[in-house]
C-alpha cells in the first residue's frame, strides 16, 4: 500500500481531495464481493458448498479486523474518532438534509458514520454466530468440540436474523449514498473507487490525521498471531462433543447388522426405537434378521450406548423425534422427511441408490454418523 497517499492531501488538481485511501477502498469493494459471495452460498448454493460459505466468511473476518485497526490508525477520514459523532450531530445533520442543503463532510457524514458502525458490528456478530453455529451444528471449525448442538442451533437462528438485519442496513446505506450524491452533486460511488471528492471554494479543508501504518501493521500481526495460537490451542482439545469414537467394524456392528443393509449409525434413532427393534428381529421390516442370543445382547448394548441421546450431531439431535406410526423407520421421521422434501420420490429407485434407506449413496460420511453438508454427493445418475 502506498503510504504517501494514505492521508488527506491535495492532489494534482486543486479541486480534488483524496478522502478514501487505497486500503479503505480495497477493503470496501472486497467486502462487497465477499458479502455477495456469502449471501449466495448461504441462501442458494447446494448444501455441499458450505466450505465456500465458510471461506468467504473467514475472508470477511480478516477484512473486519483490518478495518477496525484502520479505524484507529488509518488516515483521518477512515478513523472512528472522526466519524462516530454525538446523537445531536446526527440530528443536526439530518435536519440539514431535510432542508435540502446538507452540511459538507470530508468523509462520512454523522448519519453515515453510524451506518458504518452498524454494518461493522452486524457483520462481526454474523461471523461470531456463524462460527458457533458451524461448531455446534456441524462439529466443524475452530470451535468444534466446545459448542453443543443446542447452542449452535440457537446461534444459527441468530445468524440468520442478523443477516436479515444486514440486508436492511445495506440498502439503507446505498440509499444514503445515492441521496447524498444527489444533494451534493457528487458521485460518491465514484469517490469510493478513485478515493477523491471535489473541494469547492466554500468548503474548508479539515485538519485530519496522517495514517500510522506501522502501528496498524503491528496490531494486525498481533491479532493474527493471537488467533493462530488460539486455533492451535483449541485444535488440541482431545474429545470434541458429538465425536465419540465410532467404528462400525471395530464394534462388530458391521458384521452383525451391516450385511443386508449399510451399518446404520446408532445415533440415527433413539434408545426406545432400538429397544423395540432389537427385540423384534425375527420380523425386521418383513425380514427375519434374528441374531444369536450372544450377539443380540452385544448389539443391544452397543445401540443403546450410542443411540441418538448419546450423540450431539445435528442428525442425532433432530432424529430423536421419531414417526408416531413407524418409530423404527428413520426415513419416516419428521426431520428426515423435511430434509428430503425436494428430492423426487422416484429418484430413490435409481440403480445406484435402490431405496430411501441407502443413506451412503448420497451421504459419503454416513457411516460416521456426521452427515455433514460437504459430504452430500448425488450419485452419478442425476437426481432431477
Amino acid at each position: 500500500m502506498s503510504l504517501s497517499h494514505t492521508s488527506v492531501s491535495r492532489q494534482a488538481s486543486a479541486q480534488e481531495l483524496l478522502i478514501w485511501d487505497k486500503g479503505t477502498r480495497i477493503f470496501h469493494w472486497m467486502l462487497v464481493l465477499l458479502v455477495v459471495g456469502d449471501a449466495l452460498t448461504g441462501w442458494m448454493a447446494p448444501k455441499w458448498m458450505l466450505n465456500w460459505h465458510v471461506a468467504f466468511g473467514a475472508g470477511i473476518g480478516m477484512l473486519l479486523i483490518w478495518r477496525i485497526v484502520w479505524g484507529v490508525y488509518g488516515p483521518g477520514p477512515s478513523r472512528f474518532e472522526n466519524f462516530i459523532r454525538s446523537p445531536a450531530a446526527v440530528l443536526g445533520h439530518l435536519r440539514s438534509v431535510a432542508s435540502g442543503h446538507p452540511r459538507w463532510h470530508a468523509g462520512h457524514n454523522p448519519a453515515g458514520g453510524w451506518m458504518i458502525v452498524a454494518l461493522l458490528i452486524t457483520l462481526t456478530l454474523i461471523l461470531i454466530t456463524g462460527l458457533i453455529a458451524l461448531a455446534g451444528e456441524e462439529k466443524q471449525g475452530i470451535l468444534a468440540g466446545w459448542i453443543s448442538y443446542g447452542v449452535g442451533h440457537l446461534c444459527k437462528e441468530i445468524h440468520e436474523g442478523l443477516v436479515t438485519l444486514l440486508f436492511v442496513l445495506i440498502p439503507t446505506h446505498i440509499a444514503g449514498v445515492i441521496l447524498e450524491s444527489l444533494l451534493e452533486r457528487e458521485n460518491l460511488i465514484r469517490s469510493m473507487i478513485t478515493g477523491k471528492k471535489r473541494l469547492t471554494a466554500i468548503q474548508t479543508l479539515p485538519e485530519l490525521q496522517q495514517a500510522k501504518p506501522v502501528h496498524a501493521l503491528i496490531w494486525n500481526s498481533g491479532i493474527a498471531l493471537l488467533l493462530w495460537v488460539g486455533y492451535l490451542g483449541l485444535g488440541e482439545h482431545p474429545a470434541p462433543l458429538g465425536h465419540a469414537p465410532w467404528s462400525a467394524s471395530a464394534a462388530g456392528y458391521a458384521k452383525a447388522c451391516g450385511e443386508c443393509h449399510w451399518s446404520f449409525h446408532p445415533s440415527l434413532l433413539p434408545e426406545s426405537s432400538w429397544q423395540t427393534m432389537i427385540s423384534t428381529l425375527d420380523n425386521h421390516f418383513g425380514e427375519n434378521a434374528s441374531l444369536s442370543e450372544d450377539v443380540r445382547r452385544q448389539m443391544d448394548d452397543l445401540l443403546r450406548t450410542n443411540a441418538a441421546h448419546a450423540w450431539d450431531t445435528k442428525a442425532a439431535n433432530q432424529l430423536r423425534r421419531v414417526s408416531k406410526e413407524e418409530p423404527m423407520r428413520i426415513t419416516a421421521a419428521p426431520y428426515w422427511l423435511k430434509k428430503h422434501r425436494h428430492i423426487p420420490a422416484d429418484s430413490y429407485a435409481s440403480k445406484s441408490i435402490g431405496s430411501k434407506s441407502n443413506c451412503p449413496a448420497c451421504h459419503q460420511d454416513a457411516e460416521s454418523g456426521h452427515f455433514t453438508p460437504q459430504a452430500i454427493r448425488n450419485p452419478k445418475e442425476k437426481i432431477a
Partner: protein
Amino acid sequence: MKAFIVWMVGLATVVPQHAWSGEQASLLEKYARQARQESPDFTVFQPQRGELFFTSRHSGGKPDTPACTTCHGATPTSSGMTRANKPIEPMAISKTPSRFADPDKVEKWFGRNCDSVLGRPCTAQEKGDVLVYLLKQ
C-alpha cells in the same frame, strides 16, 4: 527329503483346485452328525439334492422370498442383492473362496433364510446338501 518333495507334489495334484478349508470340512462333519441324529436313513450329502433345493420355489415362507435364488441370483456363480439393496457375493466357492469358513455366519444365515423361504428351520440334511452343492461350484 526327496521323498518329502515327491509326497508334496503328489498331494498338490490330488487336492482339488478349490480346497475346502478345515472349517468347511468340519462344518460338513457337524451337519452329517446332526443329519444322522435327525434321520437314521441318512447316508451321505448329495449335491444334486442341494441344487434342487437351492433353485426350486418353496412354499411356507414369506411370499416375497419363495426361493434361495430370489436374493442370491439365478445361479451360485452370479451375484445377488439383499432386500435392502446391498450386493451379495456369489455363493459358489470358486467365486467367493471365503464362503462357509465362518460357521457362526453360516448358522446365522441358514437360521434367517430358511425361515424366510420355508417358514421353518432347515434340516441338517438340507443344509449339508446345499453346502456340498455350493462347495463344488
